[in-house]
C-alpha cells in the first residue's frame, strides 16, 4: 500500500487490476473513499499479531477449548 495519499489515477489502476474497472468520472471519488478506508484500517498495523492465526471461517463458540479459525 502507498503511504502517501492515493491519487485518482493510482486508484483507477489498482481497481482495474483488482477486476473492477472504473470510468474516468469515478476515479476521484473512489480514490478519496479508498484513502479514508485505508486510514481507518491502517491502525491494525500497530498490533503485535505474532503467531495469532486469522479467524477466517469464524466461529463464535470455542470448540473443545481451542481457538477456532
Amino acid at each position, binding site marked *: *500500500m502507498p503511504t502517501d495519499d*492515493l491519487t485518482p489515477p493510482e*486508484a483507477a489502476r*489498482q*481497481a482495474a487490476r*483488482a*477486476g*473492477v*474497472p*472504473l470510468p474516468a468520472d*469515478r476515479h476521484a*471519488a*473512489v480514490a478519496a*473513499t*479508498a484513502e*479514508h*478506508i*485505508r486510514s*481507518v*484500517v*491502517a*491502525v*491494525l*498495523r*500497530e*498490533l503485535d*499479531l505474532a503467531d*495469532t*492465526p*486469522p*479467524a*477466517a*471461517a*469464524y*466461529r*463464535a*463458540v*470455542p470448540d473443545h477449548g481451542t*481457538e477456532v*479459525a
Partner: protein
Amino acid sequence: MQPYELSLAAAAREIGARRLSPVDLVESVLDRIERVEPGLGAYAEVTAERAREGAREAEREIARSGPRGPLHGVPVALKDLIDVAGLATGAGSLVREGHRADADATVTARLAAAGAVLVGKTHTHEFAYGLVTPRTRNAWDRERIAGGSSGGSAAAVAAGAAPFTLGTDTGGSIRVPAALNGVVGLKPTYGLIPRHGVTPLSWSLDHVGPLTRTAEDAALVLAALAGHDPRDPASLDVPAPDHRPHPDDDLTGLRVGVPRTYYFDRVTEPVESAVRRAVGHLAELGATLVPVDIPLTRYIRATHWGLMVPEATAYHEAALRSAPERYGEDVRVLLEAGALMSATDHLRAQRARTLMRQEWARLWEQVDVIAAPAVPMTAVPAGQESVEWPDGTTESVPDAYVRLSAPANITGAPALSLPVGHDPAGLPIGMQLLARPLGEHTLLRVAQAHERTHPVRTLAPAAG
C-alpha cells in the same frame, strides 16, 4: 385494543384461547398497514392476498387441532434481503430489478413451518450497506430516520404494521433501527440462526434475527428459528438451547458488567441517563453491577471495516463490472473502493478478530451480561450527516450508529436492544444487553425482567 396492537405473545394467547381468529388478526394488521404506510414507507411489498389465504388456512387448522405453537396464525414481515419463493428479493436496489427467488430462505421455511403468516417484505438500506433506509421514516417522528439497514422491519413493528419482523445485522442493522424506533431487536450468536437464502453483506459478520415489541416475543421467535442448517457454512451444530420466555424477575446472583470505557464515551446525555437508570433497575432486581473495561477499543472500527469492506466488494464484484450504474452512489463508491483492499488487509483484520475474541472471552469470565447504550444518540433528522461531540470530535452519523454495535458482530456475541425510555423530544432510547456466545437465555431473561418491571411503550403513538 385492536388486534394489530397485540404483542406476538399476547396474540398467541388470544389465538390459543380461541378468542382471536388469525383471519381477524391478519385483517387488522393489513388495515393498519394501509393506514400508516403512506407516511411510514416500511414495506417494499405487501402480500395481502397471500396473507389472507394463509390466515384462513391457519384458522382451519387451529379450529381442527389447535395451534402448532405461538407463531401459528401470527403475521410476520421479512427484510427484503430474505428469500421467499416466488417473490422478489429486492434488496433496496435497482440491481435486483426483475428478481424472483426460487426457494425460501431457511428462516422463511422455519417461520412457515411454525405457521406464521407472511404479510410482506420490508425496506432495507441498499444491500444492507448503510444505516439510514432512506425509503422508510421513523415511526415516532416522520422527519427523522428509521435507521438501518433493517429500517423497514423496525418501523413496521413500532407502527403496529407487523407484530414481528426479521432483519439482518452486520454492524448493528437490527439493533440500531430497533433502538431508534423503540422496539426490541435481537442479534443472536453468530451461526445460531442459519443465513441460507439471505443476501449477504459480509459473510463473517452477518446475522439474522427478530424485531419485536417485547423481549418475550424475541424469545418465542428465536425458539422457532435457531438450529443447524449445513447450507450455511457458519451455522452452529449445537444442541438447541432453551429460548423459551423466562418467568422469573429475580436477578440475584447475576453479574452485570457496566463498561467504564467505550460504550458510554461520546453518548448524548438523555441516552446515558436513561441507560444508567435502567442499569440501576437491574441492580434493584438483585443483579450485581461489575465495572468492566472493554478490550482493544482502538481497533474495533478498523477490524470491523477490514472484514466488512472487502467481503462486501467480493460479493458484488460481478455486478460492479456489469451494471455499476444501478447502485446508489453511497453504496457504489464503498463497493468500488473496497476493491483496493489487499488480502493482507483482510487477513490482518481476521487476526485482530482472533485477539478480540480472546480478550472478550476473558471478559465473559467476569460477568454474565454487559449493559450499555445501543446507540450514542436517538434518531437524527433525515439528511443530517454528522454529529459533533462535546470533546470536539465530529463523527459521521453512520459511524456513530455502528460504533456501539460492532463489537458484538466482530466477536459473535449475542446482543439485544431493549427500549428503556424516551428523550425530551419523545424519541425512543435503547439499552444494549450483550452476553457470551450462546448466552441468549441469560440475555433474554434479563431483558424480560426489565420489561416486566419497567414497561416502556413500544407502539408508536399517532402513527396513522
